[in-house]
């Protein structure tokens, strides 16, 4: 009798397991689990839940508007500038407890303005109006730079993921996203696994008369257990870690000292610096805020200055985004899935669109 019961039990387990395998594979195909496996929530519960979500959303929106602008500021902004402050837009996306992952301290960005020359002061007061709009300029060409390539692998994760492969894939996806909008020519410094020296990347950007430059990289910080996101624009830095990173990313630049002196003169082009900083802010905000939706463990290392040669060489607004962190095992695992890389590309595209529009509602988080 016991053996019959035991046999029946084993058969039931086997049957359940086979159904489990089937359901898992069905789920994998995106067809969802069969209704038998799902608990249907009570309709009233569903309705109440929706109502609560709507109410919270409404209250949060009111709160953000209240904290971002005083009524006077709001009126002033509305009357004098068609486009609200980008900082306000970014803050509108922050959750209430944002203080713990807020953008980096002012030293990272605002204190850097002292480096700018006096001729730039005219732009200082109108920093929220993009130069492209102020001067009636348009962004016709965007250059995407996939970091490393060929013999320069970049970082390699513990599972063998190679930075150059990830950056190329994200760059291609970003190109596709930007291309979908039309009206803008999107180019890449490399489209395959080839080594392109940094000076060639810069030359290519100049030759093609690109109006915007974004370089995609992946961090490797074994001492930091979490995933971090940070965006750089060109400028001097005293931070040893940043200088070490710059040394790594500048490897293979093939610039000589004489070239460097000539290039240094370009520092006078403060408009580029200022625009790069603005551009970096939008990229960083979009990357971090949207990535944060998928993972609690992301740290926002904000917008920073660093002496990356590739950023110095190009004449147009240029940023280098460290979009992820290969030393974090969970992040490395995620980077091997297409959906994660696709998301990163989407957030970069959203950052670019936000920079270009500055004020129009294109933020990825608003979708």
């Amino acid at each position, binding site marked *: 009798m016991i053996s019959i019961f035991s046999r029946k039990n*084993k058969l039931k*387990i*086997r049957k*359940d*397991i*086979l*159904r*489990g*395998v*089937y359901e*898992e*594979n*069905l789920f*994998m*195909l995106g067809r969802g689990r069969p209704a038998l496996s799902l608990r249907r929530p009570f309709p009233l519960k569903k309705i109440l839940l929706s109502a609560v979500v709507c109410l919270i959303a409404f209250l949060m929106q009111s709160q953000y508007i209240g904290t971002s602008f005083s009524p006077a500021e709001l009126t002033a902004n509305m009357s004098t500038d068609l486009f609200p402050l980008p900082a306000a837009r970014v803050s509108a996306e922050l959750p209430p407890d944002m203080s713990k992952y807020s953008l980096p301290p002012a030293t990272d960005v605002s204190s850097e303005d002292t480096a700018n020359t006096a001729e730039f002061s005219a732009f200082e007061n109108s920093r929220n109006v993009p130069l492209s709009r102020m001067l009636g300029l348009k962004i016709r060409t965007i250059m995407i730079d996939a970091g490393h390539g060929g013999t320069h692998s970049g970082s390699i994760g*513990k*599972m*063998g*993921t*190679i930075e150059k*492969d990830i950056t190329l*894939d994200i760059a291609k996806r970003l190109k596709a996203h930007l291309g979908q909008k039309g009206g803008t020519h999107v180019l890449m410094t490399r489209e395959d696994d080839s080594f392109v020296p940094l000076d060639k990347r810069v030359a290519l950007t100049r030759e093609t008369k690109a109006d915007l430059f974004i370089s995609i990289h992946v961090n490797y910080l074994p001492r930091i257990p979490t995933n971090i996101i940070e965006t750089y624009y060109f400028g001097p830095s005293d931070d040893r870690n940043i200088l070490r990173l710059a040394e790594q990313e500048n490897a293979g630049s093939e610039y000589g000292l004489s070239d460097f002196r000539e290039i240094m003169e370009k520092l006078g082009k403060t408009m580029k610096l200022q625009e790069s900083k603005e551009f970096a802010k939008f990229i960083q905000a979009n990357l971090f805020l949207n990535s944060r939706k998928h993972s609690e463990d992301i740290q926002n290392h904000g917008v920073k200055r660093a002496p990356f040669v590739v950023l110095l060489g190009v004449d147009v607004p240029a940023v280098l985004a460290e979009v992820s962190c290969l030393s974090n095992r969970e992040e490395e*695992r*995620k980077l*091997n*899935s*297409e959906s994660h*890389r696709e998301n990163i590309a989407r957030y970069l595209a959203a950052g670019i669109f936000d920079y270009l529009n500055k004020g129009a509602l294109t933020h990825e988080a608003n979708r």
Partner: protein
Amino acid sequence: MKPIDEQDNVLFVGIDLGTSRSAISSSNGMREWIESYVGWPKDFIAEQVVGKPVLFGAEALQHRLSLDFCRPLERGIIKEGIESSERAVKEIIRHLIDLSKPEPGQKIRAVVGVPADSLKVNKLAIRRAVVEYVHTLMVVSEPFAIAYGMNLLNNALIIDIGAGTIDFCIMHGTIPSEEDQRTILTAGDYIDEQLFNYLIEKYPNSKFNMNMVRQFKEKFSFVRDINEQIHVELPVDGKPVMHDIKDEIRRACESMLPSLVETTTEMIARFDPEFQMKIKNNIVLAGGGSLIRGIARYLQDALKEYGTCKVTCVADPLFAGADGALKLAQDMPFKYWETL
């Protein structure tokens, strides 16, 4: 119940897509395996030399200097979007299916076992790679396929020691969830790296490469002690010289043990104490790493302080995964196959 004519016209296959070796077992009795390496001739001249558009396994290794060489599941995952990795997986699957010799027009229903990590992150990439060559497909984790094949459906811990990863899978009467499975990277490739470094340290003037080191490991691996000497011939300044590598083999193999023991105890400790005893008496080692001499005994002794336990090894590590996947394919009700 499926119609007889349809039953006859279906070939069920179980595929074990491994980091180092991939195997296929099919319902027509064919059982084949290849090393999970793929190579494409680098240029026209290389193609003339190797005489084939694509090479697999040992043959690819032999001609690796003339090839764009790819080991697609290195470290247990496919690098999605990286063209060569996905292409290599496709080639391996196509080659394995060809080796199983399906009849023309025969429907192929496949269950593919993949490293647990790969199942977590590469589900769609695996489907894309396989779906071209089969009519219907299911993907499962390798240790689960092994457990199913061995009828270890309840109160068992399967430890699949592969080249790229060691996959742990606890079976408790249901399909294992992500929480029931763990993966660590200190596996066969890690031993190779350690052995390579130890040999360089001991014999700095001798010439050898990673492939040779892997062969030494596969031939001589052991933990604790064995009553035999291990000598291999390596060139020094062009002359073949015998080298004693016993200590280095032991050290390299034992370098994997701390993480193996630690993860095993962690996996067991997560379960209700009532079931812990049952699981401890049903630990099964699979994969190429289970062939390391003395490893089951070592693990059993290491776990003694937590109470009695029993560790065994699968009889046929090369085909345990593929056989389990085949059994799963054949047991799967017809209605499930039809709706996928």
